[in-house]
């Protein structure tokens, strides 16, 4: 365990390079380039706002801001597991030919998506200021903690699914469907009040619920996050990450033969 941490430290430059390649290489050939990182969610929000403000009225005040705050973290999470599932399979050539700690692959993929999310948060803050919606500075101090918890959770799940995908390629497609359902089971397009009290216990089993709620508390309701929620989310995040590392390490031994 200790040895593999040292090895990871030694390979930090590889992680940095892969993250850079992921972020910069992705849009390199397109005309608008990196701008797409921002344009994509903006259009997504535009569409949802139209649908849920005019067609299916949600009755939420400042709906686009509410949506924005929930959707950006969700997008990070969702891409980390759906596209993240193939992050090992896609690097088949590297794995077959070069030795490096395999766990770098999910780490660098999720990290690059995380950085992507951080950059999109610049847009969120710009919108909050420009629309005179304003922020609660003290509450925002808790934002990094929420982000880190979400990162750990996404990383843990990505490790599990990317390792399983090597042996079972269907998972990638199955996850696409799961993701779709998962999004509607998370209070992004609606407030948690819509969920009847008696099923809310089950609802809270979804690890993304406390995380999205915390984002909304901090930025939409401009209040301090509920510490119970935060603790709940943090525990789930760490437990899943530990399981992820364990599963990935167990499964990586046969990667070369299975790819």
């Amino acid at each position, binding site marked *: 365990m200790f040895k593999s941490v040292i090895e990871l430290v*030694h*390979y*930090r*430059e*590889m992680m*940095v*390079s*892969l993250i*850079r*390649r992921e972020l*910069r*290489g992705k849009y*390199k*050939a397109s005309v608008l380039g990196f701008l797409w990182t921002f344009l994509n969610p903006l259009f997504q929000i535009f569409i949802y706002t139209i649908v849920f403000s005019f067609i299916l009225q949600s009755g939420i005040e400042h709906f686009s801001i509410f949506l924005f705050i929930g959707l950006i973290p969700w997008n990070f999470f969702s891409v980390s597991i759906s596209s993240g599932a193939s992050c090992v399979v896609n*690097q088949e*050539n*590297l*794995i*077959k*030919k*070069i*030795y*490096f700690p395999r766990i770098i692959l999910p780490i660098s993929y999720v990290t690059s998506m995380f950085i992507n999310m951080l950059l999109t948060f610049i847009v969120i803050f710009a919108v909050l200021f420009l629309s005179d919606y304003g922020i609660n500075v003290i509450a925002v101090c808790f934002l990094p903690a929420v982000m880190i918890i979400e990162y750990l959770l996404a990383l843990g799940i990505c490790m599990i699914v990317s390792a399983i995908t090597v042996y*079972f*390629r*269907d998972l990638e497609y*199955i996850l696409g469907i799961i993701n779709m359902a998962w999004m509607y089971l998370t209070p992004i397009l609606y407030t948690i009040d819509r969920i009847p009290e008696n099923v809310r216990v089950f609802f809270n089993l979804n690890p993304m619920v406390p995380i999205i709620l915390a984002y909304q508390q901090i930025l939409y309701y401009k209040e301090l996050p509920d510490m119970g929620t935060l603790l709940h989310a943090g525990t789930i995040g760490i437990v899943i990450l530990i399981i992820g590392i364990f599963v990935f390490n167990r499964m990586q*031994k046969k990667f*070369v*033969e299975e790819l």
Partner: protein
Amino acid sequence: MTDDDAVIVRNITKNFRVYSDKGWTLKERLVTAGRRKYQTRNILNGISFQVKKGEAVGLIGKNGCGKSTTLKMLAKIMCPDSGEVYVQGKVSSLLELGAGFHPDMSGRENIYLNASILGLTKKEIEKKIDNIIAFSELEEFIEDPVRTYSSGMYMRLAFSVAINVNADVLLIDEILGVGDVSFQKKCFERLQEIKTYGTTIIIVSHSLEQLEAICNRCIWICDGKIKEEGLPVIVNAHYYKEMEDQRLQKCKKNLIAETQCNISTDERENSNSQTIAIPDESAGSIEVYAEDTKPEFSQNKFDIEVPVLPPSINKSATRVGTYECEFTGLYMKNKNGNEDVIFSIGDCIEIIISFKGNKVIRGANISVSITRADGVYCYGTNTRFDKCKDIEITLEENEIKFYFDNIKLLSGTYFINLGLYDSLYKEYDVIWRAKKFYIKDTNLNGECGVFQMEHHWIY
């Protein structure tokens, strides 16, 4: 493991599962659950060797014998099923060039990317980047995206990164044949330089010359086991000899198969004897006509039906002539009197030629000649040159034997050509490339040309 050992491999084995029909998808998994067919292929079957620090070792063997698998185990890419692998020091494996290159990023960015994947830290890369760029000779293009590079430039950049990664143990898998000749030479010199620094090198290559130049030792792996180990010159020579033998055996098998195929089609054609008889007769009638009107040497082959080639003659042979008389068989035998198509320099080759005529012809002349596979005419003679007594062709099949008592051809693929002429060299039947044969490569020291010539040196 003592201090001066760099690599110890102890009795490693490895099996691969080869799925006859690998089911990746859910449906296939469910349908075939529990009865997925696979064969276990034994790749390595107990290999042990040691490499001292600073030593250069070459791994040789035919494709699929397990060389690359061994290298992958040393590089920790794969784990052996049983046995142990110890490697002391930092390992750098050059099994893949340009790992992780992104086509839209510049040459410089890709150097960072590739080098970091090979395990270098940022500081190390910065220290080396100038050397790497200089080595690749791509200074002018280094800021361009690599997708604009030619494939040679791409490989040069990739190789420059790979060869500049310093390590205690360097594993190389067939990547020395990169770029143009001068770049290859440069890479090779660089490798020798690395060796002088005391880096342990383990190299897989099919270029025996390169191995001999750089390695202290060669290990010949055959069917997952070590067949021979020792000085490169000796091991390589044995390896080369066996590979050559195997190749020639395969050629021989193909030839035999071809001949048998000839015979079987021949039989088939004979069974339809009606159809074959007609062209024969018509050939005869045209022959008369041809003889009357144009008694020249050369024959217009469009006028004459070419008789079916005898089964003992190569199918790809070409034939011209008037066919008043024709060859009916050709056999090559070795000194033991067995039919053979593989000979060594200095061997005696017996060539048995049979022929018959449609009429009795006196004073015929038979020629035997050799051309190399690339068309070089090597040697030719005939009974007239050799002042043999005249040959009489009758309606019955006759046989003549010809001997190359001491064949001096150098190794290669050759063909026997046959000719049957009258005293004025009118072509009755000339068969080009009638029979294929091989001369084995027995002298590794390498004479070159067509023939071995008697010679000596004086100082």
